[in-house]
């Protein structure tokens, strides 16, 4: 008997698309994630698959991320971004020629970025979604969906239509891009509340993830904690996060990414070097920013950072992978002894962007984990759907309202820093539900109704509340919330007064171009009175 280790990577970025600006700082979130995370993980998974290594992992590709990865303007801007990285890599090799401590790293970066550009253009033809779908079709990857715009669902539960729209739009979007129904979902921020599973069941979604206490605090009490899934009353399974494997990777103090040999995230030539030298690679207004060229290792709790040696760091990542697998082996051995013959599952979910973006060596670690995991007898790498297919009998219980945010509930997204948004979001939500009763009198009104639905969804993204709470880029999060609610309110008024400004609507459709397939009627009550 083998247990199953579910490695799950949650890839999500909010929808950031600013065609009105030639360069927009927040669009860099996507470009950096493509360069440092998505391409690195994808290419490694593909190599493993080509070698015939029998593994399966799962991954969320949130609808906004999929939409951005398939947006032509963002892809062309990413081309430009990648060209600039390669150009700077050449200059860095030249600049460090007489600095042995850094020259080796500069040559590494040149190779790394040129290879990345080859992957993007030649290997994946600028379409990472198709590449992920292909890997799914090969059976190595299970792509799960997410809320349409990553809205935090427990704070929408007073209006079930809003929740149903987040799930329904996401499911339709998934079908459109992956050619099949989603079998699993990563609830935004792992935010669950009793009853949400019924909405998932309506879309035939078979499983979702919760934080550990979503299982341990379920009602009735669960027999085996997070090491066996439960069926919620609607039959959708909930899988709980394993605290042990999470801490080994997530913890700032105890986790692998804090090892002193790993690359330091914060030291970057965008901040360190002469302004004139880096000027072509930072913001056009002269604002410094990260370039992706980092030459120092974490070193310790000191400002005196030592040079980073990628070979040492990659060896360290392999050691950490071995340690991670060893610990899982012991964990499964222990679980076999206490689960009374049932097959254990250990769920290890991580933000995908941790691997590569925050933890540069993360993709190397991941590759080694997979290579080692397939060589031991105690567990295998699988997905939640694998587990349910092989183990269809599970305990029935209901998780409490919970999330994976700090504190475990809604406190991150409902706080003095961000609670002001909910009166606007719920007011707009009520108006949208009311608008959904309309039958459009003209094609123009239909367009306006669909765009109103998009604006509401975009305003609901949990990222804005999260950013307001954490205190970085707050102005942007406030602006986005204001903008989408404001757009919605104006559309609402124009639709009701039959005075739709077609030019302005066209601009919104162009700028906030998410979910072209949306149908505003998704906001109609499921069971009208």
């Amino acid at each position, binding site marked *: 008997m083998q247990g199953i280790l579910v490695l799950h990577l949650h890839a999500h970025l909010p929808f950031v698309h600013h065609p009105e600006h030639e360069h927009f700082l927040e669009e860099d979130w996507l470009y950096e994630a493509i360069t440092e995370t998505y391409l690195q993980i994808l290419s490694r998974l593909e190599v493993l698959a080509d070698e015939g290594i029998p593994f399966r992992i799962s991954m969320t590709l949130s609808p906004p991320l999929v*939409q951005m990865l398939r947006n032509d303007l963002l892809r*062309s801007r990413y081309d430009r971004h990648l060209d600039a990285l390669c150009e700077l890599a050449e200059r860095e090799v030249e600049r460090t020629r007489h600095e042995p401590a850094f020259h080796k790293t500069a040559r590494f970066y040149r190779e790394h970025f040129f290879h990345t550009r080859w992957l993007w253009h030649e290997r994946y033809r600028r379409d990472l*979604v198709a590449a992920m779908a292909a890997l799914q079709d090969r059976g190595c990857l299970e792509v799960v969906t997410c809320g349409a715009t990553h809205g935090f669902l427990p704070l929408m539960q007073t209006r079930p239509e809003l929740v149903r729209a987040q799930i329904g739009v996401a499911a339709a979007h998934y*079908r459109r891009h992956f050619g099949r129904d989603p079998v699993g979902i990563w609830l935004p921020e792992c935010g669950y509340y009793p009853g949400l599973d019924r909405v998932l069941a309506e879309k035939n979604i078979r499983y979702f993830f919760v934080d550990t206490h979503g299982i341990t*605090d379920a009602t009735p009490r669960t027999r085996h904690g997070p090491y066996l899934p439960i069926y919620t009353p609607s039959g*959708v399974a909930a899988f709980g996060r394993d605290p042990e494997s999470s801490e080994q990777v997530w913890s700032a103090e105890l986790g692998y990414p804090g090892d002193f040999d790993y690359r330091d995230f914060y030291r970057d030539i965008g901040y360190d070097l002469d302004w004139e030298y880096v000027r072509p690679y930072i913001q056009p207004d002269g604002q410094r920013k990260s370039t992706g060229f980092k030459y120092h290792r974490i070193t310790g709790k000191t400002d005196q950072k030592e040079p980073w040696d990628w070979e040492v760091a990659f060896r360290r990542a392999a050691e950490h992978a071995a340690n991670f697998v060893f610990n899982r082996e012991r964990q499964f051995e222990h679980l076999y002894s206490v689960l009374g013959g049932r097959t254990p599952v250990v769920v290890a979910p991580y933000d995908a962007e941790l691997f590569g973006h925050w933890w540069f060596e993360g993709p190397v670690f991941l590759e080694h984990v997979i290579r080692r995991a397939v060589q031991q007898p105690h567990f295998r790498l699988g997905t939640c759907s694998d587990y349910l297919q092989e183990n269809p009998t599970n305990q029935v219980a209901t998780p409490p309202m919970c999330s994976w945010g700090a504190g475990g509930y809604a406190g991150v997204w409902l706080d003095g820093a961000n609670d002001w948004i909910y*009166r606007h979001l719920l007011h707009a939500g009520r108006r949208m539900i009311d608008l959904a009763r309309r039958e459009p009198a003209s094609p123009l009104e239909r367009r306006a109704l669909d765009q109103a639905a998009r604006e509401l969804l975009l305003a609901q993204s949990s990222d804005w509340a999260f950013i307001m709470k954490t205190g970085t880029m707050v102005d942007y999060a406030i602006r986005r919330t204001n903008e989408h609610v404001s757009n919605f309110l104006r559309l609402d008024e124009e639709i009701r007064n039959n005075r739709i400004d077609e030019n302005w609507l066209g601009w919104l459709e162009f700028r906030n171009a998410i979910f*072209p397939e949306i149908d505003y009627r998704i906001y109609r009550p499921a069971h009208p009175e």
Partner: protein
Amino acid sequence: MTSKETVETPVNRATQPTPPAEPPSQPLPEGHLVARIAGEEAVFEAPIPVAEERLPPPPAPEPGPPPLPAAYHDDAFVLFARDPFTLWTYWDFAPETVRRAMEGLTNPRTRLRIYQGEHRVRDLDFALESGSYYVSDLSPGERYEAEIVFVGDEGERQVGRSNPVVLPNFGPSPWIDDRFATIPWGMRLSGRPGDLEAVPGEHAGEDRGGWERARRGGASEGWVGVGRRSEAGSLDLFRRERAQQEGR
């Protein structure tokens, strides 16, 4: 602006020529058009779109949204669960609603009342203009409602009552009732009536269209991390079922 992309809309869809009837061997059109032309199921056979549709962008409007309204006066009074111990509520009453509630009251004061089930557990003086309130130190797993009233010399009058909210429970549930279900992977969850928890124990073993309840007695010493559990719940369930089977 360098991009030439935009979303497809019903208007530009309407201006596109109707596609000619295709022989069965031809691929379906891309993306969401499939659902509109050939029905929802046909989406599964459709080719995956490579890029979003592109059309010349319309002109940009003036920048910057107007500030959001300070209030909507939509009589909203909404209660949220923040964590097992804390509620948050906001309200946005119409001036007319407030005026009506205050009518005839001298020296009216606003009170926020919290009900746990039927029992009033908090009675708080507050300023209606504050717009929102956090209520802490409540009991996990309990059902709450909030009420706002004006209290004057002549008595009191309700301004509004919120939606009910159940705070999440905290820690392992005291309720032990081991129920298991078998759900074949191929079975569709959508359209299935009722909840699993609604399946009464007395029908155990009866054919339920694939929803089979299984009983697992004494399978475990307890899960790792929470501690040992009692078997009492499952034993009670067995006794109840046996009593039903014996016609008692």
